[in-house]
Protein backbone atom coordinates (compact mmCIF):
# COMPACT_ATOMS: atom_id res chain seq x y z
CA UNK A 1 0.00 0.00 0.00
CA UNK A 2 2.73 2.39 0.95
CA UNK A 3 4.64 1.58 -2.21
CA UNK A 4 1.58 2.29 -4.33
CA UNK A 5 0.95 5.56 -2.53
CA UNK A 6 4.53 6.59 -3.07
CA UNK A 7 4.25 5.71 -6.72
CA UNK A 8 1.06 7.72 -7.08
CA UNK A 9 2.71 10.73 -5.46
CA UNK A 10 5.70 10.28 -7.72
CA UNK A 11 3.50 10.13 -10.83
CA UNK A 12 1.67 13.31 -9.81
CA UNK A 13 4.87 15.22 -9.28
CA UNK A 14 6.21 14.02 -12.63
CA UNK A 15 3.15 15.11 -14.53
CA UNK A 16 3.24 18.41 -12.65
CA UNK A 17 6.83 18.95 -13.61
CA UNK A 18 6.57 18.04 -17.28
CA UNK A 19 4.51 20.93 -18.77
CA UNK A 20 6.12 23.59 -16.52
CA UNK A 21 9.13 24.58 -18.68
CA UNK A 22 7.23 25.77 -21.76
CA UNK A 23 9.30 25.16 -24.84
CA UNK A 24 8.57 26.40 -28.38
CA UNK A 25 9.26 22.89 -29.71
CA UNK A 26 7.80 19.63 -28.32
CA UNK A 27 10.45 17.75 -26.38
CA UNK A 28 11.38 14.42 -27.96
CA UNK A 29 10.88 11.52 -25.54
CA UNK A 30 14.08 11.18 -23.51
CA UNK A 31 15.03 8.68 -20.86
CA UNK A 32 16.72 11.31 -18.66
CA UNK A 33 14.46 14.01 -17.25
CA UNK A 34 17.20 16.62 -17.57
CA UNK A 35 18.22 17.94 -20.98
CA UNK A 36 21.93 18.51 -21.34
CA UNK A 37 22.18 21.84 -23.05
CA UNK A 38 25.10 22.51 -25.29
CA UNK A 39 27.26 25.54 -25.37
CA UNK A 40 28.20 26.65 -28.84
CA UNK A 41 31.16 28.82 -29.66
CA UNK A 42 31.72 30.18 -33.14
CA UNK A 43 35.20 31.31 -34.13
CA UNK A 44 36.38 32.98 -37.29
CA UNK A 45 38.37 30.40 -39.23
CA UNK A 46 41.15 32.83 -40.20
CA UNK A 47 41.55 35.09 -37.18
CA UNK A 48 40.27 32.61 -34.54
CA UNK A 49 38.41 35.54 -33.10
CA UNK A 50 35.39 34.60 -30.98
CA UNK A 51 32.41 35.72 -33.00
CA UNK A 52 29.56 34.33 -30.92
CA UNK A 53 28.94 32.35 -27.81
CA UNK A 54 25.61 30.61 -27.46
CA UNK A 55 24.63 28.89 -24.28
CA UNK A 56 21.63 26.69 -23.69
CA UNK A 57 21.50 25.30 -27.20
CA UNK A 58 19.21 22.32 -27.60
CA UNK A 59 21.08 19.09 -28.28
CA UNK A 60 18.64 18.36 -31.10
CA UNK A 61 19.42 21.63 -32.83
CA UNK A 62 20.59 21.27 -36.39
CA UNK A 63 23.47 23.15 -37.99
CA UNK A 64 20.86 25.20 -39.81
CA UNK A 65 19.36 26.23 -36.45
CA UNK A 66 22.77 27.35 -35.26
CA UNK A 67 23.31 29.25 -38.50
CA UNK A 68 19.95 30.97 -38.00
CA UNK A 69 20.95 31.97 -34.47
CA UNK A 70 24.26 33.29 -35.78
CA UNK A 71 22.38 35.21 -38.46
CA UNK A 72 20.28 36.93 -35.79
CA UNK A 73 23.34 38.48 -34.21
CA UNK A 74 25.11 39.09 -37.52
CA UNK A 75 22.33 40.05 -39.93
CA UNK A 76 24.59 40.44 -42.96
CA UNK A 77 25.67 36.81 -42.75
CA UNK A 78 22.54 34.92 -43.77
CA UNK A 79 22.65 31.14 -43.32
CA UNK A 80 23.36 30.38 -46.98
CA UNK A 81 26.67 32.19 -46.90
CA UNK A 82 27.86 30.61 -43.65
CA UNK A 83 30.20 27.68 -43.66
CA UNK A 84 30.67 26.01 -40.29
CA UNK A 85 33.33 23.34 -39.69
CA UNK A 86 34.47 21.44 -36.65
CA UNK A 87 38.05 21.59 -37.76
CA UNK A 88 39.75 24.50 -39.54
CA UNK A 89 41.03 22.14 -42.22
CA UNK A 90 37.91 20.01 -42.32
CA UNK A 91 34.88 19.93 -44.57
CA UNK A 92 31.90 22.17 -43.91
CA UNK A 93 29.09 20.63 -41.92
CA UNK A 94 25.78 19.95 -43.64
CA UNK A 95 22.71 21.89 -42.54
CA UNK A 96 20.84 18.73 -41.50
CA UNK A 97 23.46 17.51 -39.05
CA UNK A 98 22.30 17.43 -35.46
CA UNK A 99 24.36 18.90 -32.66
CA UNK A 100 24.23 15.95 -30.28
CA UNK A 101 25.37 13.57 -33.01
CA UNK A 102 28.55 15.50 -33.67
CA UNK A 103 31.84 14.41 -32.10
CA UNK A 104 31.88 17.29 -29.60
CA UNK A 105 31.58 17.52 -25.86
CA UNK A 106 28.88 19.69 -24.36
CA UNK A 107 30.81 22.69 -25.61
CA UNK A 108 30.98 22.74 -29.37
CA UNK A 109 33.43 24.95 -31.20
CA UNK A 110 32.70 25.78 -34.80
CA UNK A 111 34.90 27.59 -37.26
CA UNK A 112 33.08 30.06 -39.46
CA UNK A 113 33.96 31.01 -43.01
CA UNK A 114 32.06 33.61 -45.00
CA UNK A 115 31.29 32.10 -48.38
CA UNK A 116 30.53 35.49 -49.84
CA UNK A 117 27.30 36.72 -51.33
CA UNK A 118 25.22 33.81 -52.51
CA UNK A 119 22.65 33.46 -55.23
CA UNK A 120 20.02 30.75 -55.51
CA UNK A 121 20.61 28.05 -58.13
CA UNK A 122 17.16 28.54 -59.52
CA UNK A 123 17.80 32.23 -60.04
CA UNK A 124 21.05 31.49 -61.86
CA UNK A 125 19.30 29.01 -64.17
CA UNK A 126 16.63 31.55 -65.01
CA UNK A 127 19.05 34.34 -65.82
CA UNK A 128 21.35 32.07 -67.82
CA UNK A 129 18.39 30.87 -69.95
CA UNK A 130 16.50 34.10 -70.50
CA UNK A 131 19.65 35.67 -71.97
CA UNK A 132 20.10 33.27 -74.90
CA UNK A 133 16.37 33.20 -75.52
CA UNK A 134 16.21 36.96 -76.01
CA UNK A 135 19.61 37.40 -77.65
CA UNK A 136 18.95 34.80 -80.35
CA UNK A 137 15.73 36.55 -81.27
CA UNK A 138 17.53 39.88 -81.62
CA UNK A 139 19.67 38.28 -84.33
CA UNK A 140 16.76 36.34 -85.85
CA UNK A 141 14.73 39.50 -86.41
CA UNK A 142 17.89 41.21 -87.64
CA UNK A 143 17.73 44.21 -85.41
CA UNK A 144 19.73 47.27 -86.58
CA UNK A 145 23.52 47.52 -86.03
CA UNK A 146 24.06 43.76 -86.29
CA UNK A 147 24.15 43.20 -90.00
CA UNK A 148 24.43 45.61 -92.93
CA UNK A 149 21.65 48.26 -92.94
CA UNK A 150 19.94 46.88 -96.01
CA UNK A 151 19.18 43.63 -94.08
CA UNK A 152 17.50 45.33 -91.13
CA UNK A 153 14.30 43.56 -90.07
CA UNK A 154 14.41 41.27 -93.10
CA UNK A 155 13.70 37.56 -92.85
CA UNK A 156 15.97 34.75 -93.99
CA UNK A 157 14.92 32.98 -97.17
CA UNK A 158 16.03 29.60 -95.80
CA UNK A 159 13.45 27.43 -94.06
CA UNK A 160 16.13 25.86 -91.85
CA UNK A 161 16.87 29.24 -90.26
CA UNK A 162 13.26 29.55 -89.11
CA UNK A 163 13.21 25.97 -87.85
CA UNK A 164 16.48 26.62 -85.99
CA UNK A 165 15.00 29.68 -84.30
CA UNK A 166 11.96 27.71 -83.17
CA UNK A 167 14.18 24.90 -81.83
CA UNK A 168 16.57 27.21 -79.99
CA UNK A 169 13.73 29.20 -78.44
CA UNK A 170 11.84 26.04 -77.53
CA UNK A 171 14.92 24.61 -75.85
CA UNK A 172 15.43 27.62 -73.59
CA UNK A 173 11.74 28.07 -72.87
CA UNK A 174 11.58 24.45 -71.83
CA UNK A 175 14.56 25.00 -69.54
CA UNK A 176 12.93 28.06 -67.97
CA UNK A 177 9.69 26.19 -67.35
CA UNK A 178 11.57 23.23 -65.92
CA UNK A 179 13.47 25.55 -63.58
CA UNK A 180 10.21 27.07 -62.36
CA UNK A 181 8.10 23.92 -62.08
CA UNK A 182 10.09 20.74 -62.32
CA UNK A 183 13.57 20.99 -60.82
CA UNK A 184 14.19 20.39 -57.15
CA UNK A 185 17.57 21.87 -56.28
CA UNK A 186 19.60 19.99 -53.70
CA UNK A 187 22.18 22.72 -53.25
CA UNK A 188 20.44 25.94 -52.34
CA UNK A 189 22.95 28.54 -53.48
CA UNK A 190 26.22 29.27 -55.20
CA UNK A 191 28.66 32.16 -54.84
CA UNK A 192 27.31 35.29 -56.41
CA UNK A 193 30.39 35.93 -58.55
CA UNK A 194 29.74 32.75 -60.51
CA UNK A 195 26.80 34.32 -62.22
CA UNK A 196 29.05 36.61 -64.26
CA UNK A 197 31.16 33.72 -65.52
CA UNK A 198 28.20 31.49 -66.28
CA UNK A 199 26.03 34.13 -67.92
CA UNK A 200 28.80 35.59 -70.03
CA UNK A 201 29.55 32.11 -71.35
CA UNK A 202 25.92 31.29 -72.21
CA UNK A 203 25.02 34.74 -73.51
CA UNK A 204 28.14 35.21 -75.64
CA UNK A 205 27.82 31.68 -77.08
CA UNK A 206 24.19 32.33 -77.98
CA UNK A 207 25.12 35.62 -79.66
CA UNK A 208 28.00 34.00 -81.55
CA UNK A 209 25.80 31.16 -82.85
CA UNK A 210 22.84 33.38 -83.63
CA UNK A 211 25.03 35.80 -85.58
CA UNK A 212 26.03 33.15 -88.10
CA UNK A 213 22.77 31.22 -88.34
CA UNK A 214 20.76 34.37 -89.01
CA UNK A 215 23.37 36.00 -91.21
CA UNK A 216 22.21 37.09 -94.68
CA UNK A 217 25.10 35.04 -96.15
CA UNK A 218 24.18 31.88 -94.22
CA UNK A 219 24.70 28.66 -96.19
CA UNK A 220 22.11 25.91 -95.55
CA UNK A 221 23.28 22.37 -94.75
CA UNK A 222 25.14 20.41 -97.40
CA UNK A 223 22.63 17.56 -97.65
CA UNK A 224 19.67 19.91 -97.69
CA UNK A 225 16.23 18.89 -96.51
CA UNK A 226 17.26 15.34 -95.60
CA UNK A 227 19.87 16.64 -93.18
CA UNK A 228 17.51 19.18 -91.63
CA UNK A 229 14.73 16.64 -91.16
CA UNK A 230 17.04 14.05 -89.58
CA UNK A 231 18.58 16.65 -87.30
CA UNK A 232 15.17 17.97 -86.27
CA UNK A 233 14.12 14.44 -85.42
CA UNK A 234 17.16 13.94 -83.22
CA UNK A 235 16.60 17.31 -81.54
CA UNK A 236 12.95 16.68 -80.70
CA UNK A 237 13.63 13.13 -79.53
CA UNK A 238 16.31 14.38 -77.15
CA UNK A 239 14.17 17.26 -75.90
CA UNK A 240 11.43 14.81 -74.99
CA UNK A 241 14.02 12.55 -73.42
CA UNK A 242 15.51 15.37 -71.39
CA UNK A 243 12.09 16.39 -70.11
CA UNK A 244 11.26 12.79 -69.15
CA UNK A 245 14.48 12.48 -67.18
CA UNK A 246 13.90 15.76 -65.35
CA UNK A 247 10.43 14.64 -64.35
CA UNK A 248 11.72 11.23 -63.26
CA UNK A 249 14.44 12.85 -61.13
CA UNK A 250 11.87 15.18 -59.59
CA UNK A 251 9.68 12.26 -58.61
CA UNK A 252 12.63 10.68 -56.84
CA UNK A 253 12.97 13.64 -54.51
CA UNK A 254 9.86 13.93 -52.39
CA UNK A 255 9.60 17.34 -50.71
CA UNK A 256 11.22 17.30 -47.27
CA UNK A 257 12.72 13.84 -47.72
CA UNK A 258 16.49 14.20 -47.86
CA UNK A 259 17.46 10.58 -48.53
CA UNK A 260 19.22 9.98 -51.83
CA UNK A 261 17.78 7.38 -54.16
CA UNK A 262 19.01 5.60 -57.26
CA UNK A 263 17.01 6.57 -60.34
CA UNK A 264 15.58 3.61 -62.26
CA UNK A 265 13.80 3.23 -65.61
CA UNK A 266 10.08 3.94 -65.38
CA UNK A 267 7.17 3.18 -67.72
CA UNK A 268 8.25 6.07 -69.93
CA UNK A 269 10.50 4.64 -72.70
CA UNK A 270 12.67 7.73 -72.60
CA UNK A 271 13.76 6.79 -69.09
CA UNK A 272 14.86 3.30 -70.09
CA UNK A 273 18.31 4.79 -70.72
CA UNK A 274 18.75 4.82 -66.91
CA UNK A 275 19.68 1.16 -67.30
CA UNK A 276 22.84 2.16 -69.14
CA UNK A 277 23.64 5.70 -67.98
CA UNK A 278 23.87 7.50 -64.64
CA UNK A 279 23.16 11.00 -65.94
CA UNK A 280 20.90 10.67 -68.99
CA UNK A 281 19.83 14.28 -68.58
CA UNK A 282 23.30 15.23 -69.84
CA UNK A 283 23.17 12.55 -72.54
CA UNK A 284 19.92 13.92 -73.92
CA UNK A 285 21.18 17.50 -73.64
CA UNK A 286 24.20 16.51 -75.75
CA UNK A 287 21.92 14.82 -78.23
CA UNK A 288 19.81 17.95 -78.57
CA UNK A 289 22.81 20.13 -79.29
CA UNK A 290 24.23 17.57 -81.70
CA UNK A 291 20.93 17.69 -83.54
CA UNK A 292 21.06 21.46 -83.58
CA UNK A 293 24.63 21.40 -84.92
CA UNK A 294 23.65 19.03 -87.70
CA UNK A 295 20.62 21.14 -88.50
CA UNK A 296 22.49 24.41 -88.80
CA UNK A 297 25.88 23.07 -89.97
CA UNK A 298 27.58 25.91 -88.18
CA UNK A 299 31.06 25.74 -86.60
CA UNK A 300 30.29 27.97 -83.58
CA UNK A 301 27.38 25.66 -82.73
CA UNK A 302 29.74 22.69 -82.97
CA UNK A 303 32.19 24.49 -80.69
CA UNK A 304 29.47 25.19 -78.13
CA UNK A 305 28.34 21.57 -78.30
CA UNK A 306 31.87 20.24 -77.77
CA UNK A 307 32.57 22.57 -74.84
CA UNK A 308 29.23 21.64 -73.33
CA UNK A 309 30.01 17.97 -73.80
CA UNK A 310 33.34 18.29 -71.99
CA UNK A 311 31.77 20.14 -69.07
CA UNK A 312 28.84 17.77 -68.79
CA UNK A 313 31.12 14.76 -68.91
CA UNK A 314 33.04 16.18 -65.96
CA UNK A 315 29.77 16.70 -64.04
CA UNK A 316 28.46 13.26 -65.02
CA UNK A 317 31.66 11.55 -63.87
CA UNK A 318 31.42 13.36 -60.53
CA UNK A 319 27.80 12.39 -60.07
CA UNK A 320 28.54 8.79 -61.08
CA UNK A 321 31.34 8.62 -58.54
CA UNK A 322 29.11 9.97 -55.77
CA UNK A 323 26.44 7.39 -56.67
CA UNK A 324 29.03 4.62 -56.41
CA UNK A 325 30.21 5.91 -53.05
CA UNK A 326 26.71 6.31 -51.65
CA UNK A 327 25.20 3.02 -52.82
CA UNK A 328 26.96 -0.33 -52.51
CA UNK A 329 24.40 -1.98 -54.82
CA UNK A 330 24.74 0.57 -57.60
CA UNK A 331 24.08 -1.09 -60.99
CA UNK A 332 27.43 -1.97 -62.55
CA UNK A 333 26.19 -1.74 -66.14
CA UNK A 334 25.83 2.05 -65.94
CA UNK A 335 28.31 4.55 -67.39
CA UNK A 336 28.40 8.22 -66.43
CA UNK A 337 27.16 9.82 -69.66
CA UNK A 338 27.58 7.65 -72.78
CA UNK A 339 26.47 3.99 -72.68
CA UNK A 340 29.55 1.76 -72.38
CA UNK A 341 31.89 4.48 -73.62
CA UNK A 342 32.24 7.30 -71.12
Amino acid at each position, binding site marked *: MDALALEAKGAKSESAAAPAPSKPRPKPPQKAKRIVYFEVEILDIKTREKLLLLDKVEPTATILDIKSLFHKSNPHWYPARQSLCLDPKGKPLRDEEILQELPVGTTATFYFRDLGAQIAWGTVFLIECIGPLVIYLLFYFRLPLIYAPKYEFTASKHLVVHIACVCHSFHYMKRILETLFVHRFSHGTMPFRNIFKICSYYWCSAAWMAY*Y*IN*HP*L*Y*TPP*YYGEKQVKAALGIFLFCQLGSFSIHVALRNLKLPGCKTKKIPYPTKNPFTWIFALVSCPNYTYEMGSWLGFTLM*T*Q*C*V*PVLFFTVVGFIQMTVWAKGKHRSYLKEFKQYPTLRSPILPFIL
Partner: protein
Amino acid sequence: MSAPAMGTSKTAHSDSSNKKKKGPGTLATAYLVIYNVVMTAGWLVIAVGLVRAYLARGSYHGLYYSIEKPLKFFQTGALLEILHCALGIVPSSVVLTGFQVMSRVFLTWAVTHSVREVQSEDSVLLFVVAWTVTEIIRYSFYTFSLLNHLPYLIKWARYTFFIVLYPMGVAGELLTIYAALPYVQKTGLYSITLPNKYNFSFDYHTFLILVMVSYIPLFPQLYFHMMRQRKKVLGHVEEYSKVE
Protein backbone atom coordinates in the same frame (compact mmCIF):
# COMPACT_ATOMS: atom_id res chain seq x y z
CA MET B 1 54.19 37.39 -73.52
CA SER B 2 57.60 36.73 -71.97
CA ALA B 3 57.14 34.14 -69.29
CA PRO B 4 59.40 34.65 -66.32
CA ALA B 5 56.44 33.87 -64.13
CA MET B 6 56.21 30.28 -65.34
CA GLY B 7 56.22 27.89 -62.44
CA THR B 8 57.38 30.66 -60.16
CA SER B 9 54.89 30.46 -57.36
CA LYS B 10 55.18 26.74 -56.95
CA THR B 11 58.99 26.77 -57.16
CA ALA B 12 59.11 29.48 -54.55
CA HIS B 13 56.88 27.39 -52.35
CA SER B 14 59.10 24.39 -52.75
CA ASP B 15 62.09 26.51 -51.80
CA SER B 16 60.53 27.32 -48.47
CA SER B 17 58.69 24.08 -47.72
CA ASN B 18 61.07 21.37 -48.89
CA LYS B 19 59.96 19.02 -46.12
CA LYS B 20 56.40 18.77 -47.43
CA LYS B 21 57.17 18.50 -51.16
CA LYS B 22 57.30 14.93 -52.46
CA GLY B 23 59.07 15.92 -55.67
CA PRO B 24 59.41 13.96 -58.91
CA GLY B 25 61.06 10.53 -58.86
CA THR B 26 64.76 10.11 -59.67
CA LEU B 27 64.08 9.23 -63.32
CA ALA B 28 61.88 12.29 -63.75
CA THR B 29 64.46 14.46 -62.00
CA ALA B 30 67.21 13.17 -64.29
CA TYR B 31 65.06 13.86 -67.35
CA LEU B 32 64.18 17.35 -66.11
CA VAL B 33 67.82 18.16 -65.44
CA ILE B 34 68.71 17.11 -68.98
CA TYR B 35 65.77 19.08 -70.35
CA ASN B 36 66.70 22.25 -68.49
CA VAL B 37 70.40 21.92 -69.37
CA VAL B 38 69.54 21.49 -73.05
CA MET B 39 67.26 24.52 -72.96
CA THR B 40 69.88 26.63 -71.18
CA ALA B 41 72.39 25.62 -73.84
CA GLY B 42 69.92 26.36 -76.60
CA TRP B 43 69.21 29.86 -75.45
CA LEU B 44 72.94 30.44 -74.92
CA VAL B 45 73.42 29.48 -78.56
CA ILE B 46 70.84 32.10 -79.49
CA ALA B 47 72.57 34.69 -77.29
CA VAL B 48 75.96 33.94 -78.81
CA GLY B 49 74.40 33.99 -82.28
CA LEU B 50 73.02 37.46 -81.66
CA VAL B 51 76.33 38.80 -80.37
CA ARG B 52 78.33 37.33 -83.24
CA ALA B 53 75.91 38.64 -85.85
CA TYR B 54 76.02 42.08 -84.27
CA LEU B 55 79.80 42.10 -84.28
CA ALA B 56 79.90 40.85 -87.87
CA ARG B 57 77.38 43.31 -89.26
CA GLY B 58 78.23 46.24 -87.06
CA SER B 59 74.55 47.13 -86.53
CA TYR B 60 71.69 45.67 -84.61
CA HIS B 61 69.21 45.69 -87.48
CA GLY B 62 67.97 42.45 -88.99
CA LEU B 63 69.63 40.18 -86.41
CA TYR B 64 66.53 37.97 -86.35
CA TYR B 65 67.65 36.11 -89.46
CA SER B 66 70.85 34.89 -87.84
CA ILE B 67 69.06 33.16 -84.99
CA GLU B 68 65.73 32.33 -86.65
CA LYS B 69 66.14 28.56 -86.64
CA PRO B 70 67.40 27.98 -83.07
CA LEU B 71 64.81 30.47 -81.80
CA LYS B 72 61.99 28.54 -83.43
CA PHE B 73 63.38 25.20 -82.28
CA PHE B 74 63.97 26.03 -78.64
CA GLN B 75 60.92 28.21 -78.14
CA THR B 76 58.67 25.52 -79.65
CA GLY B 77 60.45 22.93 -77.50
CA ALA B 78 59.06 24.73 -74.47
CA LEU B 79 55.73 23.08 -75.30
CA LEU B 80 57.13 20.06 -73.47
CA GLU B 81 56.74 22.05 -70.26
CA ILE B 82 52.98 21.79 -70.60
CA LEU B 83 53.41 18.02 -70.71
CA HIS B 84 55.62 18.15 -67.62
CA CYS B 85 52.85 19.90 -65.69
CA ALA B 86 50.20 17.53 -67.00
CA LEU B 87 52.28 14.52 -65.92
CA GLY B 88 52.82 16.10 -62.52
CA ILE B 89 56.62 16.02 -62.60
CA VAL B 90 56.61 19.79 -62.39
CA PRO B 91 54.37 21.34 -59.72
CA SER B 92 52.86 24.08 -61.85
CA SER B 93 49.39 24.63 -63.19
CA VAL B 94 48.85 23.19 -66.67
CA VAL B 95 46.59 26.07 -67.59
CA LEU B 96 48.98 28.79 -66.51
CA THR B 97 52.01 27.16 -68.13
CA GLY B 98 49.99 26.37 -71.23
CA PHE B 99 48.89 29.94 -71.54
CA GLN B 100 52.38 31.32 -71.19
CA VAL B 101 54.04 28.88 -73.59
CA MET B 102 51.28 29.25 -76.17
CA SER B 103 51.62 33.02 -76.13
CA ARG B 104 55.34 32.67 -76.89
CA VAL B 105 54.74 30.09 -79.60
CA PHE B 106 52.00 32.29 -81.05
CA LEU B 107 54.35 35.23 -81.34
CA THR B 108 57.13 33.10 -82.82
CA TRP B 109 55.07 31.34 -85.47
CA ALA B 110 51.77 33.11 -86.01
CA VAL B 111 53.25 36.61 -86.08
CA THR B 112 56.98 36.73 -86.69
CA HIS B 113 57.26 33.70 -88.96
CA SER B 114 53.98 34.25 -90.79
CA VAL B 115 54.33 37.92 -91.56
CA ARG B 116 57.70 38.13 -93.30
CA GLU B 117 57.67 41.91 -93.44
CA VAL B 118 58.00 42.31 -89.65
CA GLN B 119 61.11 40.16 -89.42
CA SER B 120 63.35 43.12 -90.14
CA GLU B 121 61.71 45.28 -87.49
CA ASP B 122 63.74 46.35 -84.46
CA SER B 123 60.90 45.41 -82.14
CA VAL B 124 61.66 41.76 -82.92
CA LEU B 125 65.17 42.20 -81.52
CA LEU B 126 63.65 43.80 -78.42
CA PHE B 127 61.60 40.75 -77.45
CA VAL B 128 64.19 38.22 -78.66
CA VAL B 129 66.82 39.74 -76.37
CA ALA B 130 64.34 39.88 -73.48
CA TRP B 131 63.33 36.26 -74.01
CA THR B 132 66.95 35.09 -74.40
CA VAL B 133 68.23 36.61 -71.17
CA THR B 134 65.10 35.53 -69.26
CA GLU B 135 65.22 31.96 -70.49
CA ILE B 136 68.94 31.49 -69.85
CA ILE B 137 68.44 32.57 -66.24
CA ARG B 138 65.18 30.65 -65.84
CA TYR B 139 66.42 27.32 -67.17
CA SER B 140 69.68 27.50 -65.21
CA PHE B 141 67.58 28.33 -62.13
CA TYR B 142 65.53 25.16 -62.65
CA THR B 143 68.65 23.08 -63.33
CA PHE B 144 70.36 24.16 -60.12
CA SER B 145 67.12 23.83 -58.11
CA LEU B 146 66.70 20.26 -59.27
CA LEU B 147 70.30 19.52 -58.23
CA ASN B 148 69.66 21.27 -54.88
CA HIS B 149 72.62 23.56 -55.41
CA LEU B 150 71.09 26.90 -56.25
CA PRO B 151 73.59 29.76 -56.22
CA TYR B 152 72.06 32.85 -54.69
CA LEU B 153 73.17 34.85 -57.72
CA ILE B 154 70.93 32.85 -60.04
CA LYS B 155 68.00 33.11 -57.67
CA TRP B 156 68.57 36.83 -57.34
CA ALA B 157 68.85 37.25 -61.11
CA ARG B 158 65.66 35.29 -61.73
CA TYR B 159 63.65 37.44 -59.39
CA THR B 160 65.26 40.74 -60.32
CA PHE B 161 66.01 40.87 -64.03
CA PHE B 162 62.34 40.52 -64.87
CA ILE B 163 61.78 44.04 -63.58
CA VAL B 164 63.37 45.34 -66.77
CA LEU B 165 63.08 42.34 -69.08
CA TYR B 166 59.37 41.81 -68.69
CA PRO B 167 58.29 45.29 -69.83
CA MET B 168 60.97 45.16 -72.51
CA GLY B 169 59.65 41.89 -73.87
CA VAL B 170 56.06 43.08 -73.77
CA ALA B 171 56.99 46.27 -75.60
CA GLY B 172 58.77 44.27 -78.29
CA GLU B 173 55.86 41.90 -78.67
CA LEU B 174 53.23 44.62 -78.89
CA LEU B 175 55.23 46.66 -81.40
CA THR B 176 55.76 43.57 -83.56
CA ILE B 177 52.07 42.69 -83.60
CA TYR B 178 51.25 46.30 -84.37
CA ALA B 179 53.73 46.28 -87.26
CA ALA B 180 52.13 43.12 -88.65
CA LEU B 181 48.62 44.55 -88.74
CA PRO B 182 48.66 46.33 -92.13
CA TYR B 183 50.13 43.29 -93.90
CA VAL B 184 47.61 40.94 -92.33
CA GLN B 185 44.77 43.18 -93.40
CA LYS B 186 46.10 43.53 -96.94
CA THR B 187 46.62 39.81 -97.55
CA GLY B 188 43.71 38.51 -95.46
CA LEU B 189 46.14 36.17 -93.70
CA TYR B 190 44.53 33.32 -91.70
CA SER B 191 41.11 34.83 -92.29
CA ILE B 192 37.93 33.22 -93.59
CA THR B 193 34.94 35.17 -94.85
CA LEU B 194 31.27 34.39 -95.39
CA PRO B 195 29.63 32.75 -97.20
CA ASN B 196 31.10 29.28 -96.70
CA LYS B 197 29.62 25.88 -95.92
CA TYR B 198 30.85 25.98 -92.30
CA ASN B 199 28.98 29.20 -91.60
CA PHE B 200 31.98 30.58 -89.82
CA SER B 201 34.15 33.65 -90.23
CA PHE B 202 37.41 34.73 -88.68
CA ASP B 203 39.27 37.98 -89.13
CA TYR B 204 42.90 37.59 -88.09
CA HIS B 205 43.44 41.33 -88.16
CA THR B 206 40.71 41.93 -85.57
CA PHE B 207 41.99 38.95 -83.61
CA LEU B 208 45.47 40.47 -83.40
CA ILE B 209 44.01 43.73 -82.16
CA LEU B 210 42.12 41.82 -79.46
CA VAL B 211 45.36 40.05 -78.49
CA MET B 212 47.05 43.40 -78.08
CA VAL B 213 44.17 44.68 -75.96
CA SER B 214 44.37 41.59 -73.75
CA TYR B 215 47.85 42.61 -72.66
CA ILE B 216 46.30 45.53 -70.76
CA PRO B 217 44.65 43.49 -68.01
CA LEU B 218 47.07 40.56 -68.14
CA PHE B 219 50.48 42.22 -68.05
CA PRO B 220 50.01 44.14 -64.75
CA GLN B 221 48.63 41.03 -63.03
CA LEU B 222 51.60 38.89 -64.04
CA TYR B 223 54.10 41.66 -63.31
CA PHE B 224 52.82 42.31 -59.80
CA HIS B 225 52.61 38.58 -59.17
CA MET B 226 56.35 38.40 -59.92
CA MET B 227 56.93 41.37 -57.62
CA ARG B 228 55.15 39.62 -54.77
CA GLN B 229 57.11 36.43 -55.46
CA ARG B 230 60.31 38.48 -55.34
CA LYS B 231 59.48 39.84 -51.91
CA LYS B 232 58.63 36.39 -50.66
CA VAL B 233 61.64 34.56 -52.06
CA LEU B 234 64.37 37.17 -51.71
CA GLY B 235 63.01 38.46 -48.44
CA HIS B 236 63.33 35.03 -46.72
CA VAL B 237 66.91 34.36 -47.79
CA GLU B 238 68.29 37.16 -45.64
CA GLU B 239 66.82 35.49 -42.56
CA TYR B 240 68.25 32.09 -43.46
CA SER B 241 71.72 33.44 -44.13
CA LYS B 242 71.69 35.10 -40.72
CA VAL B 243 70.80 31.78 -39.07
CA GLU B 244 73.59 29.97 -40.89
